[in-house]
């Protein structure tokens, strides 16, 4: 513990799995902030290099391995980018299947993050295990929802992790009708579970800290944009084509981070559930809008901690939307489609919303149809600058109100609220005061 009032030296080392490792450093002296840095120190992983020379259909399965949690998103973004590069069209059936696959990933990831990673923060626990004692019904519901989402992915995509069914132009192996009907029944049952979850989360107290920022997401003219859309930032009404994604990301580097940072209309922006809910609230399922109201989430919302409640809102949306998609698919039936294609030269970009925000992929192919250029911009790297700026804004507000440990906890909670791809994030709970 630092002796001088208002003086803290907080160094949280190895904030892991922001696709690697990062650290958090907060130095204050006599009530003034000297330094706040979110240091991303992981080495580059070179996936964009791995795929050079690959045939088009090999790429989506390869880049799926960028992340075990976001594997569906990377696969879908790559698939869309390559189809754009090669001028390939897909059927309505394939679009429905891809939307379901993507939403199954949202349900998986949000359930995991809201209930198993973030929830302990708001209940004063270090992990979900003590909650199994104090809130067993909550944890049972969470496990049930997580298992349902995993099974949903497996039924549509062929397996839970790195699904194999989706490919260029369609589906290698169509989902089993009875298995889809079973998932549909379980999703309908889960509506009650989600309501119980909503009532519980509505009782939680989130830090009342706000900072206005820009929210960036996809926007679609007809639906809440998760699988498709154009790029929108809350600082402008103009939509940007996905092929121009670099104009939105404007990636740049900083000395203390091996992750690239992003900015668009201002110094930083936020992607993810809160950004999507803020930008496209009117297109949420009506029940999801009601849940937002019940949770006190009113747009525009500038409290990043409420990204967790936005995730729950999206779970409700995805559940209802998936029910509709499954009903439609079961009504229409599934047809085997030709997934053959002719390789050619071309360049294309694709974007999907993944649980942590908008994800961009771009690929180019040479005359032999071999990949010759690749780029991926992931949500966490787009959020890093915004997280650091939130910390710079919130630390002064907290100084004098909370002690050093609580200050560190608030910053960890803030980082967790963004649900960065810190999949093994709990290493960061080792807080060292120097």
């Amino acid at each position, binding site marked *: 513990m630092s002796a001088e009032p208002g003086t803290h030296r907080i160094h949280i080392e190895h904030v892991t799995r922001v696709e690697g490792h990062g650290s958090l450093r907060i130095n204050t002296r006599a009530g003034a902030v000297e330094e706040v840095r979110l240091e991303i120190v992981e080495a580059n992983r070179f996936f964009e290099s791995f795929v050079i020379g690959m045939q088009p259909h090999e790429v989506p399965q390869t880049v799926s391995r960028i992340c075990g949690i976001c594997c569906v998103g990377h696969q879908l973004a790559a698939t869309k980018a390559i189809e754009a590069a090669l001028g390939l069209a897909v059927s309505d059936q394939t679009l429905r299947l891809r939307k379901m696959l993507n939403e199954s990933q949202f349900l998986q990831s949000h359930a995991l993050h809201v209930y198993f990673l973030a929830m302990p923060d708001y209940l004063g626990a270090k992990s979900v295990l003590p909650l199994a004692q104090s809130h067993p019904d909550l944890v049972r519901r969470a496990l049930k929802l997580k298992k349902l989402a995993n099974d949903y992915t497996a039924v549509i995509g062929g*397996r839970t992790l790195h699904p194999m069914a989706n490919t260029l132009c369609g589906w290698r192996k169509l989902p089993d009708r009875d298995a889809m009907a079973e998932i549909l029944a379980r999703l309908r049952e889960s509506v009650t579970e989600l309501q119980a979850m909503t009532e519980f989360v509505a009782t939680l107290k989130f830090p009342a800290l706000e900072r206005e920022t820009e929210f960036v997401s996809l926007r679609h003219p007809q639906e809440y944009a998760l699988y498709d859309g154009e790029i929108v930032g809350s600082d402008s009404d103009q939509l940007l084509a996905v092929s121009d994604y670099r104009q939105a990301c404007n990636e740049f580097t900083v000395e203390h981070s091996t992750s690239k940072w992003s900015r668009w209309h201002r110094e930083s922006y936020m992607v993810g559930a809160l950004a999507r809910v803020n930008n496209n609230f009117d297109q949420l399922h009506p029940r999801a809008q009601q849940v937002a109201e019940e949770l006190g989430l009113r747009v525009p919302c500038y409290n990043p901690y409420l990204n967790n409640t936005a995730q729950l809102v999206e779970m409700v949306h995805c559940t209802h939307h998936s029910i509709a998609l499954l009903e439609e698919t079961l009504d229409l039936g599934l047809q085997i489609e030709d997934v053959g294609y002719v390789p050619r030269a071309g360049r294309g970009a694709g974007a999907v919303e993944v649980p942590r925000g908008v994800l961009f992929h771009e690929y180019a192919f040479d005359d032999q149809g071999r990949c010759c250029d690749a780029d991926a911009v992931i949500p966490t790297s787009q959020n890093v600058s915004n997280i650091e700026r939130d910390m710079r804004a919130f630390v002064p507000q907290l100084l004098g109100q909370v002690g050093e440990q609580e200050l560190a906890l608030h910053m960890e909670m803030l980082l967790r609220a963004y649900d960065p791809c810190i999949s093994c994030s709990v290493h960061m709970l080792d807080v060292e005061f120097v």
Partner: protein
Amino acid sequence: MWSSSDSRGAAGCSLLVLGLGASSRRDDAIGVHLVERLGAEAPPGVEAVALPDADALSVAQVLLEAASAALIVDCAEMGLAPGEWRLIGESDLGAGRGLGAWSTHGVGMGEALALARALGFTAPVSLFAVQPADCGVGAQLSVELWASMGELRAALRQTAGEIANCGCQEAG
């Protein structure tokens, strides 16, 4: 997920046999391969469920739903010859270890079991652990483990039958 549940609830102590493993990491999937084959030849009182690529939280949920004794079949690096196996009791499974490390990637089997225990799962759990030869990327088992399949299938069938028929046993 593959399941054979014909004898669940039959007389005697029912046993859930769970086959785990990553389907794209060769011998890591030995549990899945063995339990898929056990399904067709499961002893009375045994339910065989293969969970390829399942995360540990899903395993916890399956244990809670089953509420019966469980035998988890998985590969484990034990320093043995490829294809050798051991029956490991719960006390050696590491339940509850590393509880500060809950994360999206870091929920291990021990933590999942600890979670199931905390939520009221009281039945005994043991591990039928098989020594792998190669857990590299690939869909096929190694030659060594293919060569051991007959022996492993018989051992698993016998072990599952013994556990299922011995009453509310203390596994391992």
